[in-house]
C-alpha cells in the first residue's frame, strides 16, 4: 500500500489532529513515481477513507443542522475529490516523497472543519503535481480591448525580494509597526492567513510566491471596465489546494445559479462580484462573465484571435527598457482611455492655467498624441524606482508647445549648484518667454485677458519693456530652484517659526544690460514693501549693494526690533532677507541673503548641464533638521488638533522622525530622448541603510 493515513480517522472515535500527519510514503525509485500514472487500486484506500468520512459527515449533519453554504462546500470538496481521482490524465505526474507536502493540521474546534480539512488533504494528496506545459505569453489570454494591463513578470522573485527587503526588515523593527503587530486587531486579522498557511503547509509569502510563480496580471477592459486577474501558479496541485482553501475560507456564501456555475466542464465560483475558476495551474478571476469565458476559450483552445498579444501598443511598450526590466509593469492603452473617459480628452485639450502649463504643458501634448503609456516599478535594496514612458515624436510637437522641449526636443536643464542643507531642488528646461508669447494659443480667453492685465502692470514695473520679449526673452530656459534649510543661529533675531530659504537661478542672456535693469526693478519692489509695511506697522527693509564672487548683489534685511516682544515671539518675516544677485552670468533671486551668497559661490565651479529635461529632488536629512528646528510648533499643533498630551505629541514627532530616517532622498526626472522617440519619467526613492547594516558591512570590509 503506497498511501495510507498514519492515524486513521475512525467514524466512532474522535481523531486527535493536533499531531496528525498525512504522509505518502513510497519504496519505489523516485523516477518511477514521477512518471507512472495512478491506478484505482492505489487510490482505493484514500477513496474508502473519503467515502467513509462523507458518510460520517452526512450522518452527523442529519442530526446537527448546519448552514447550507457549509454543506455545499463539503459536498463540492467530495465531488472534486472523486473527479480528481477519476479524471487523472495519462500525462500527469506524481511527486516524489521528498516533494510531497507533509500535513500538519492546526488544532481546530469544529469537527466539521476537521473533516473538511481531511477531505481536502486527501484530494490534494491524490491529485499529484500537474505541471502544465504551456509556453504561451500569459498576456495573450487577455482580450485585445484591454485598456490597462498590470503584470508581474517574475512574481515569485518579487515576493522573495519584498520579503527579504531591508526596508521591510527595518519597518518590522520599528516600534510603531511592532505596536501594530502586537495588537489584538492584527492577531484577529491573521486568522485567515494562518488557516491558509496550515492548509498549504507553507508560510504565506512562500505560498504567495508559489501561487504566482509563473505569472500574475490584472487587466481592465475598455468595453465594460471589467477587471480580470490571471495568475499562473507553480503547478496544478498547488492551485487545487488554493481552490480548496479558498472554499473553506469563503464557504461560498453566494453560489452561482444553475447553468452559470460551469463552462466547458470547468467549475465557476463567485467571489464577491467576480467569477473565479481554476484550470490546471491557472487561476482566473473576472468581474465579467463574457471576459472570463473568452479567456477560458483562449486557454483551452490555444486560440490567440482577439487577444491582447495582437496589440501593437503592448508589443511596443514591452520592448522599452522601462517595461522589460521592471518588477511590476503597467501598460495603458491611451486611445482606449481617451475614448472611455471624456474628462481625459478634455484634460488634454487645453492648458488649465499658466503655472500648470509651465510645469506640464509639453507632457500634456505628448499624452494627447500618444497611443500608449508604460510604467515599471523596480525594487532594489537601496531604492525603489518608478519609471514611466510615453512615445514621443518630435515632429508632431506643435509650435506653441516647442518651448517645453526646446529645439529638436533636445532641451536640457542646467546642473544644480550645490549648497549645504538643500531640502528640495528643481532643474527645469522651460523657455518661459516662448510660452508667454504663445499664450494666445495655449490658454482660454479669460486667462489671456488676465495675462494682458498682468503684462500691463509688469511693463510699468520694468520701465516700459515688453515682458514676454524684452524681459523673459533675455533669460535663458535653464531654470533652477533651490529650497534650503537656514541655519537658525545665523538668523538675527531668530524667528520663532523657522522657514526654509528658497531661490531661483536663471541664466541672463545679456548680463551687462539686464542686471542693472533688474536691480532697479528689485529696488523698486523693496521700496514698495517698505511703504506698505510702514502703513501696517511692520519692520522696514534695509538694503545695500555688495560685490560677490563673479558679480554683485542687492540684498535687504528687516530691521531688528528695538525692544523684545513681551511674549518673546519673533515674527516669521525675520526668515526673509530678499536678495537679487548677478553672478557668473546667472540671475539669482533669493528669499535669503546667505543662500544667494552660497549659490553665487557654487556657480563659480559650475559643471556642465546634465542630460535631463526636468529633475526634482527632495533630501530627507535637511528636511528632518528643519522639522526638528520647528518641533515646538509641530508638537503644539498635534496637542491642539489631536488632543494629545505633551508626551504623546513628542512620541508622535519622534515616530515621524524615525520613519523619515528610513529614507534618503526622493528624485524625479523627465528626459525627452529624440533618438529613442520616447519621453521618460522616473521617480526614485533612495533608502537609507540601517545603521546596523552599515556597521555590519564596514566590519566585513575591514
Amino acid at each position, binding site marked *: 500500500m503506497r498511501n495510507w493515513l498514519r492515524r486513521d480517522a475512525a467514524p466512532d472515535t474522535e481523531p486527535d489532529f493536533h499531531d496528525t500527519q498525512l504522509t505518502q510514503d513510497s519504496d519505489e525509485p523516485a523516477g518511477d513515481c514521477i512518471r507512472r500514472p495512478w491506478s484505482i487500486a492505489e487510490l482505493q484506500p484514500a477513496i474508502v477513507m473519503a467515502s467513509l468520512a462523507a458518510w460520517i459527515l452526512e450522518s452527523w449533519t442529519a442530526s446537527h443542522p448546519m448552514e447550507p453554504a457549509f454543506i455545499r462546500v463539503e459536498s463540492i470538496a467530495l465531488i472534486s475529490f472523486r473527479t480528481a481521482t477519476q479524471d487523472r490524465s495519462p500525462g500527469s505526474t506524481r511527486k516524489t516523497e521528498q516533494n510531497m507536502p507533509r500535513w500538519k493540521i492546526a488544532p481546530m474546534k469544529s469537527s466539521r472543519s476537521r473533516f473538511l480539512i481531511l477531505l481536502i488533504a486527501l484530494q490534494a494528496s491524490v491529485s499529484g503535481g500537474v505541471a502544465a506545459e504551456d509556453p504561451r505569453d500569459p498576456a495573450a489570454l487577455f482580450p485585445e480591448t484591454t485598456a490597462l494591463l498590470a503584470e508581474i513578470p517574475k512574481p515569485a522573485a518579487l515576493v522573495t525580494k519584498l520579503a527579504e527587503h531591508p526596508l521591510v526588515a527595518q519597518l518590522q523593527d520599528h516600534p510603531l509597526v511592532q505596536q501594530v503587530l502586537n495588537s489584538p486587531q492584527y492577531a484577529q486579522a491573521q486568522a485567515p492567513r494562518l488557516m491558509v498557511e496550515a492548509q498549504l503547509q507553507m508560510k504565506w509569502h512562500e505560498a504567495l510566491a508559489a501561487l504566482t510563480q509563473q505569472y500574475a496580471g490584472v487587466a481592465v477592459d475598455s468595453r465594460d471596465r471589467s477587471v480580470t486577474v490571471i495568475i499562473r501558479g507553480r503547478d496544478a496541485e498547488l492551485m487545487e489546494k488554493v481552490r480548496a482553501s479558498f472554499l473553506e475560507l469563503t464557504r461560498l456564501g453566494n453560489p452561482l445559479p444553475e447553468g452559470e456555475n460551469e463552462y466547458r466542464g470547468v467549475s465557476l465560483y463567485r467571489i464577491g462580484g467576480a467569477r473565479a475558476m481554476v484550470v490546471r495551474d491557472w487561476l482566473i478571476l473576472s468581474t465579467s462573465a463574457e471576459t472570463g469565458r473568452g479567456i477560458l476559450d483562449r486557454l483551452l483552445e490555444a486560440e490567440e484571435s482577439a487577444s491582447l498579444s495582437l496589440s501593437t501598443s503592448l508589443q511596443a511598450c514591452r520592448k522599452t527598457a522601462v517595461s522589460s526590466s521592471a518588477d511590476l509593469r503597467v501598460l495603458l492603452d491611451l486611445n482606449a482611455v481617451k475614448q472611455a473617459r471624456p474628462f481625459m480628452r478634455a484634460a488634454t485639450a487645453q492648458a488649465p492655467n499658466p503655472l500648470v502649463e509651465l510645469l506640464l504643458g509639453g507632457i500634456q501634448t505628448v499624452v494627447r498624441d500618444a497611443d500608449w503609456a508604460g510604467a515599471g516599478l523596480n525594487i532594489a535594496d537601496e531604492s525603489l524606482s518608478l519609471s514611466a514612458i510615453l512615445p514621443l515624436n518630435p515632429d508632431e510637437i506643435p509650435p506653441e508647445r516647442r518651448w517645453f522641449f526646446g529645439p529638436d526636443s533636445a532641451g536640457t536643464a542646467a546642473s544644480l549648484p550645490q549648497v549645504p542643507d538643500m531640502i528640495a531642488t528643481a532643474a527645469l528646461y522651460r523657455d518661459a518667454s516662448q510660452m508667454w508669447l504663445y499664450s494666445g494659443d495655449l490658454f482660454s480667453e479669460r486667462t489671456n485677458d488676465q495675462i494682458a492685465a498682468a503684462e500691463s502692470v509688469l511693463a510699468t514695473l520694468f520701465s516700459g519693456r515688453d515682458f514676454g520679449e524684452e524681459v523673459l526673452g533675455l533669460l535663458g530656459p535653464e531654470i533652477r530652484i533651490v529650497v534650503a534649510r537656514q541655519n537658525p543661529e545665523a538668523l538675527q533675531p531668530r524667528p*520663532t517659526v523657522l522657514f526654509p530659504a528658497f531661490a531661483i537661478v536663471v541664466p541672463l542672456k545679456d548680463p551687462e544690460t539686464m542686471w542693472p535693469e533688474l536691480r532697479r526693478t528689485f529696488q523698486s519692489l523693496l521700496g514698495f514693501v517698505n511703504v506698505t509695511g510702514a502703513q501696517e506697522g511692520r519692520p522696514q527693509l534695509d538694503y545695500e549693494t555688495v560685490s560677490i564672487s563673479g558679480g554683485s548683489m542687492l540684498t535687504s534685511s528687516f530691521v531688528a526690533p528695538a525692544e523684545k516682544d513681551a511674549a518673546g*515671539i519673533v515674527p516669521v518675516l525675520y526668515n526673509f532677507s530678499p536678495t537679487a544677485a548677478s553672478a557668473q552670468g546667472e540671475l539669482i533671486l533669493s528669499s535669503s541673503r546667505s543662500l544667494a551668497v552660497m549659490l553665487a559661490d557654487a556657480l563659480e565651479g559650475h559643471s556642465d548641464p546634465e542630460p535631463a529635461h526636468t529633475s526634482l529632488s527632495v533630501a530627507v536629512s535637511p528636511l528632518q533638521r528643519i522639522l526638528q528646528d520647528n518641533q515646538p510648533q509641530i508638537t503644539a499643533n498635534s496637542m*491642539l488638533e489631536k488632543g494629545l498630551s505633551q508626551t504623546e505629541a513628542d512620541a508622535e514627532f519622534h515616530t515621524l522622525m524615525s520613519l523619515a530616517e528610513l529614507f534618503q532622498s526622493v528624485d524625479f526626472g523627465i528626459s525627452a530622448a529624440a533618438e529613442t522617440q520616447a519621453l521618460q519619467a522616473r521617480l526614485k526613492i533612495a533608502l537609507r541603510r540601517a545603521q546596523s547594516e552599515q556597521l555590519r558591512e564596514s566590519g566585513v570590509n575591514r
Partner: protein
Amino acid sequence: MIRMSELSPLPASEAWMPFRPGIDGDWNVAQAAHLYRRGGFGAPLEQLQQAVDQSPDQAVSGLIEAVEPDTYRSTMATLAHAAAASGDTRSLAAWWLRRIISSPAQAQERLVLFWHGHFATSAEKVTDVSLMLQQNELLRTHAMSGFEPFVQAVSQDPAMLLWLDAAASRKAHPNENYARELMELFCLGEGKYTEQDIREAARCFTGWEVRRKQFRFNRFQHDNGSKTVLGVTGEFGGEDVVQVVLQQSAAAEFLICKLVRYYLRDDIADVVNLCQPLIRQYRDNGLVLKPILKQILNSRLFHSPWCVGYRVRSPIDLAAGLLRCFAGSANTVQLSDQTKEAGQGLFFPPGVQGWDEGRAWINTSTLLGRSNLIAEMLADSATRFSGQSPADYVRDKFSDNAETIVRQIQDLLFSRPIPGSTAAQAVELLHRRTDQSIREALQLLCSIPEFQLC
C-alpha cells in the same frame, strides 16, 4: 413685571449663609456636580465622589484654591507661545479651550471666561495674536484678586487700548470710548454717570498709547488740566480716574450683581436687595473677589432647587462640560470653531458688551450649531475620554447595566431629570454596547433640552 419664579425663595439675610447638608438639602454626587459645573466646567465622577466625602465648605475651598502645577503651567506656556507664533487666532482659541478643559484650576478658568465677557475685546479688531494672549494672561493673573489693580491693568492693556481706540486719544481730540465703557460696562452700569463725566474722564486717558505692542504714556499728548469726574475735581490722569470710578458705591453693587447672575441665574428679580450682604462684604474687604466667590458657591441659595438647573449652558459649557465630566480631550481647533459657530467664539465676543448669556444662547441658528457640536465631537476620532474612545470609556468605567449607566450619566451631566422616554431610548442603545450605539446614546442624551440647562 416680576414673576414669582424670579424671586429668591430665601431672604437676603439667609441666602448667603453656608449650605447645611441634611437641613438645606442633600450633599451628594448630583449636588457636587452642580458646584463643579457652575464654579468650573464640570468634573469626572471620581472627583465628585471625593468632594462628597468632604464637607461642602471644604469642596468649595478646594475648587477655588486649586492651582495649576508648575509642569502644567509650563506646558500651557509652551503651547500658548506656539499658538501666538503661528499668528492664528484659531490656534490661540484652541489653546485656551484646551486649558479650560484640562486645567486643575477650574474656578480660575471659569472666572477668566467671565472676565473675557466683562472686559470684552475681540480679535476681530485686535489682529495681533500675541496681544490677545497677553490680555488673556492678564485676566488670569487678576481673576480673583482686588478689582482696582485689575481695572488699572486692563486700562493699560495694549489689546484693550487698541480695541476701544484709546491708543489714538490725543489731548486735542480725546477719544471717549474707553471712558464710556469703563463706567457703563466695566464698573458702574448705565445711569450712574453723566455724559459730562465721560468727556472729563476721556481727557484723563489722553496720551495713553501703544508702541511696539506695549503701553506707553505720551506726556506730550496728555491733557494736564483740571477735570471733574463724578463730582470730584483734580488734575487727574488715567490711574486717578479709575480710582474715582471705583470709589463710587455703585461699583461694588454693579459687579456683585453681575457675578451673582452669572453664577446663580440670570433672571433674578430684585437682585440688588438680594445681594446687599455680599456687596457690603465686598466693599469691606477692599473689592477682593475670592472670599465673595467662596461665599456665593457655598451658599444656601446656590445649592437650592431655585438655582439648580436654571442656567442655560453656553457653547463653551456645553463642549467643555461634556469633556470634563468624562476626563476627555479633543481636537480643540475644531471644537473652538464649533463653539464659535454656536455663538461663543473665544477671543471673538460679539461686541463691547460681551455675550448676553442666559436664554440668548438658544435661538434657531445656534440650536443647530449646538447639536452639530456634540455630534461632531463624539464622531471625531481625536475625541478621547480618559485616553479611550467614548465607547470604550463607557464600557470600561460605567456599569454593565444600561439602566445604571443612564442613572450615572444623569448625576454626572444633568441638573434636571432625563425624561423617561429619552432614558428608555438611551437604555436600549446602551444595551447593544456597540461603538455606534454608545455614541448614539451619548449624542441623544446631550441633545435633549434638559442638557442645555445646568
